[in-house]
């Protein structure tokens, strides 16, 4: 039971990050390598704003968490849109792989930039306590508050994003842009605006994930995004990249798997191999991911 709760919480975090990957991928058809680092920036934003907000909302309260998450998301949305404008937009009509390289460059830049002593430094920093420390006891499991909050947030965001993509004009534009930017332009869609919006949104998602992740892990450092980023990216793909529900499903699956294997004495050292192995198996059985629809190609 305890492991189930652990797995659910971890999985929800991965799902949250995977949502960001999938959002950006869904529209631009490229893996935003810098997503993991935006997560880290979001965490640092939270680290800096939380103490300032604490007097307003009270130490360790839900209000404090919400306000911190919100501000971090706004900050990261700005950064994300800025990155898009400077590093990705000039390459708009180039092959996606070209953009992938600038994304890797941006990712390295953020990692090494933030490690520089003049910026954040390489050391791990303790993340402020945003939620009350008491545990909740629940069916024999001990659950920390953040572990309760995370699945709810993920669930809420999933529904919100789904609504955005399927039910709004912006969502429709996003889907059109994702398939063919020229054709979308011929429909009157302002590609640049849609893409900037998508990036801002994706980055905000990264920030939300970053803050929640840090609350849970309680320590942050400039390289903290890499591993969850990698896992969440795999999760997004296994779920069927571009598919929101798939991202969440993939994230949950990987979180559960990791928790389950990580808790097994004797094989916990093979944890990554086993979870990655499972991914391979899943993709071999379902080559376009769990929920992904095979891309139709009429001959």
């Amino acid at each position: 039971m305890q492991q189930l709760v652990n797995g659910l919480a971890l999985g929800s975090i991965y799902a949250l990050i995977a949502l960001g990957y999938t959002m950006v991928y869904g529209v631009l058809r490229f893996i935003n390598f810098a997503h993991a680092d935006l997560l880290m920036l979001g965490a640092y934003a939270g680290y800096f704003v939380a103490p300032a907000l604490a007097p307003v909302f009270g130490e360790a309260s839900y209000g404090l968490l919400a306000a911190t998450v919100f501000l971090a998301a706004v900050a990261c949305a700005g950064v994300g849109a800025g990155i898009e404008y400077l590093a990705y937009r000039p390459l708009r009509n180039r092959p996606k792989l070209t953009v992938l390289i600038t994304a890797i460059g941006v990712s390295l830049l953020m990692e090494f930039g933030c490690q520089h002593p003049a910026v954040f430094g390489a050391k791990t920093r303790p993340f402020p306590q945003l939620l009350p420390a008491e545990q909740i006891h629940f069916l024999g499991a001990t659950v920390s508050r953040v572990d309760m909050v995370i699945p709810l947030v993920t669930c809420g965001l999933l529904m919100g994003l789904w609504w955005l993509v399927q039910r709004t004009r912006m969502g429709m534009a996003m889907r059109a842009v994702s398939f063919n930017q020229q054709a979308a332009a011929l429909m009157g869609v302002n590609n640049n605006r849609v893409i900037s919006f998508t990036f801002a949104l994706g980055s905000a998602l990264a920030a939300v994930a970053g803050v929640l992740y840090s609350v849970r892990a309680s320590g942050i450092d400039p390289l903290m995004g890499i591993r969850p980023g990698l896992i969440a990216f795999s999760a997004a793909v296994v779920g069927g990249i571009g598919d929101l529900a798939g991202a969440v499903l993939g994230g949950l699956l990987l979180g559960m798997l990791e928790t389950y294997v990580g808790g097994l004495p004797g094989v916990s050292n093979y944890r990554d191999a086993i979870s990655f192995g499972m991914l391979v198996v899943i993709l071999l059985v379902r080559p376009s991911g769990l929920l992904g629809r095979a891309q139709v190609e009429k001959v």
Partner: protein
Amino acid sequence: MLEVRDLEVGYGAITALHGISLKVETGRIVTLIGANGAGKTTTLRAISGLLRARRGQVLLEGLDVTRCAAHELVARGLAHSPEGRMVFANLSVIENLRMGAYLRRDAEGVKRDLEFVYGVFPRLQERLWQQAGTLSGGEQQMLAIGRALMSRPKCLLLDEPSLGIAPKLVQTIFQKIVEINRQLGLTILLVEQSAHMALEISHYGYVLETGRILLEDRAEVLRTNARVREAYLGGG
């Protein structure tokens, strides 16, 4: 309505259009004919903002729109049914049509126009929920034209609308083109390989050859022009 002045467009080292000028009066149907590679598609793409002009101007209703992005032109009432169809393959037929009306806010009008499109292409109505990518070639062509109509443009660019369409339907399409031109006063710039039929319904025509305007005249004059007959109307 639409005017092109001394337009030069190229791809990398290749120059595809060497300064062409043409004029489409409001409410007219104008046809652009020319052999393969003459630059017809290039002309339309440059007008609708998909390609950048190297030199020259494009004027829409007297305003210089040479530097306008494609989406801005749509807002000004231009629609383009492109070569190669470019339907949104993973959206359904109905979603594709709704994308065509992306900038419109009048739900009522959109509904009416949908009905109109269904009237022209009943096949589309049968397949509303099919993914556009799995439609047959001709069905996709219908969708591309229908989608262009959905923005309720003032000026419509059609790149080979009859491509891949069965003969019977080709006749229908041409009839409808005339119909919308007459009823809605829609200005149309048409690129066609079936020059014969195109010239029959047009008011005016231009003949393009290797990126230059070779001839221009009223459609019925062009139809009887010996050179045109030989080169583009298949001799007879």
